[in-house]
């Protein structure tokens, strides 16, 4: 493999990795706050992708409208799922909550199959063209993806660290009971967490379409699971961790594919997950939690 090819693959990896990172943030934030592996998160991307597809391919709306639509619908969907399916189970056993999340995920996938059809919907690429830098051709789509996700992450970091709602989110994830005693509205904070996470997923869906311009009902499931792996790898509950995890998974996949094992990509990701869980279950930046006796 030539050096320039390696660089090209790395950039590819960073492009997919930034989508993973955006989605992983949603998983990580939700997990941090209500300790739920929100299986449905990946499927929100799928719905977002369909929104973009219909807006652009069917109604020929300008891309910016498509983006707003995707982010808006994703956010709404995320919050609705939280209100309808998760809020009533807040004091239920963790297992029930997890099963509900799996149920919602499959409901979205199969519902989408009924509504949008089981076939793949392909569209024209939204961002075309590429730029040549030192003999390496980099697509504009890759640049847009990486830049947009980095901006989104910076904004998120500021929101979480500087704003009132960010502080509330951190307080609730630290100690739900104490946060409530301090006058923080649990419902509002949790909903906001879902809203922000789902909005990021909406952005993720647009960026995903930049790389692979097609939507299908099950597209979110593998993407979601890999993003979750990224979140675990980085240390679940940690925002910088989710970003690092996302990039690592993306680059890893690109390298495995570059080595000629593209069929083994998924297996490699899960193998990494198993290794991380066995040797450092808290991930790269995670904290250890001990049960009180």
């Amino acid at each position, binding site marked *: 493999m030539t050096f320039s090819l390696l660089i090209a693959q790395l950039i590819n990896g960073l492009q997919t990795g930034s989508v993973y990172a955006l989605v992983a943030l949603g998983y990580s934030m939700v997990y941090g706050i209500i300790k739920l592996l929100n299986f449905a998160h990946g499927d929100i991307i799928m719905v977002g992708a369909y929104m973009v597809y219909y807006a652009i391919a069917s109604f020929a709306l300008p891309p910016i409208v498509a983006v707003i639509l995707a982010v808006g619908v994703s956010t709404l969907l995320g919050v609705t799922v939280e209100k309808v399916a998760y809020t009533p189970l807040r004091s239920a056993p963790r*297992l029930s909550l997890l099963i*509900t999340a799996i149920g919602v995920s*499959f409901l979205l*996938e199969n519902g989408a*199959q*009924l509504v949008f059809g089981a076939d793949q919907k392909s569209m024209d690429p939204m961002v075309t063209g590429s730029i040549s830098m030192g003999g390496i051709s980099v697509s504009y789509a890759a640049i847009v993806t990486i830049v947009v996700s980095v901006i989104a992450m910076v904004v998120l970091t500021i929101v979480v660290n500087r704003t009132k709602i960010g502080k509330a989110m951190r307080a609730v994830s630290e100690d739900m009971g104490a946060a409530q005693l301090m006058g923080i509205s649990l419902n509002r904070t949790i909903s906001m967490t879902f809203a922000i996470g789902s909005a990021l997923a909406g952005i993720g869906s647009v960026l995903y379409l930049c790389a692979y311009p097609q939507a299908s009902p099950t597209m979110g499931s593998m993407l979601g699971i890999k993003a979750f792996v990224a979140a675990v790898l980085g240390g679940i509950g940690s925002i910088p961790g989710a970003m690092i995890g996302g990039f690592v998974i993306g680059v890893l996949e690109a390298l495995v594919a570059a080595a000629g094992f593209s069929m083994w990509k998924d297996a490699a990701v899960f*193998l990494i997950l*198993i290794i991380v*869980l066995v040797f450092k*279950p808290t991930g790269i930046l995670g904290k250890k939690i001990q049960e009180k006796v």
Partner: protein
Amino acid sequence: MRKTRISTPIRYLINTALIVVLWVLLTVVISASGLKGEYYRGIMITIGINIILATSLNIVCGYLGQLPLGHAGFMAVGAYSGAIFMKSTPAAALLRAGNSAAVIPYLIIAVVIAAVVAGLFGLLIGIPALRLKGDYLAIITLGFGEIIRVVLTNIDSVLGFKVTYGASGLARIPKFTNFNVMYVFTVLILFLIHVFMKSRHGRAVLSIRDNEIASESVGINTTFYKTLAFVFSAMLAGVAGCLYAGYLGSLYPSTFKFMKSIEILVMVVLGGMGSMLGSIISAVVLTALPELLRSFSDYRMVVYSLALVLMMLFRPKGLMGTYDFSMGDTLERIIDRIRFGGKSRKEVQG
């Protein structure tokens, strides 16, 4: 407390008699249905496979209280190992000659191989997975199931010779699973799960579900029992896979997707985690219903997932909760009712 006590040998006798009666009944239904009998037979075999899958998942999901999402992976391992073995035996020729009795020894060996191989994989994944809890265990088993599928699809290209035939599928497997074979194995496995749970090992597993810290405080080796339950569950899934291979005669890696694990999970959850009866009922209903209502099959997965969510929201314990049926106990209760009339149990006790 019940006054009537039916002794254990009599209980076994009653249950054996009922199992034979049910067998006769189903056989009569199949043979009396003429052309449709073949169709019914197929549904019943599928039900049997699903009963084994659901009740075996229930060991880890209901009795141990963990949520594994890779059950289809163990099923796949069992299916492929059993099928590859069967293809190497003269079973196909024997079956063509109509000599199904001579296939039985091969069949038993295939089932044992499937159970052992699936069990080994269970051990391999259980040891790291069971150190984790809840969501982590779910995701690690999910990952494992997916790895199995990827390996089954691509292993041939790595090894350089044909073993699994990749995505094009493993075909021409001797069709050794007939109705009787299925019936015997379903009954046998239900019995094995029952006797396992009604032993010191089963109690230890249940106590871990109810309170792991307290289990340790009374000296239960929690790691051992978690692994035991996990491996046992994987072995039975392997058996189900092997019988599935022998029923269909061909295998495709895509059958054993994440979706399959979820389908099995739905059966366990709807039936009631921790209730063998619940798993059996929902395996029967969820297999038969889409068959009987063909037009319903498009909506099947939507209804499944909706049912899953609604069940968690409104009846999180499932159809049966943790209730387990015992013919002996029920008979004792009925006899009590006859002997002591409509008096409440308290009065009888006092």
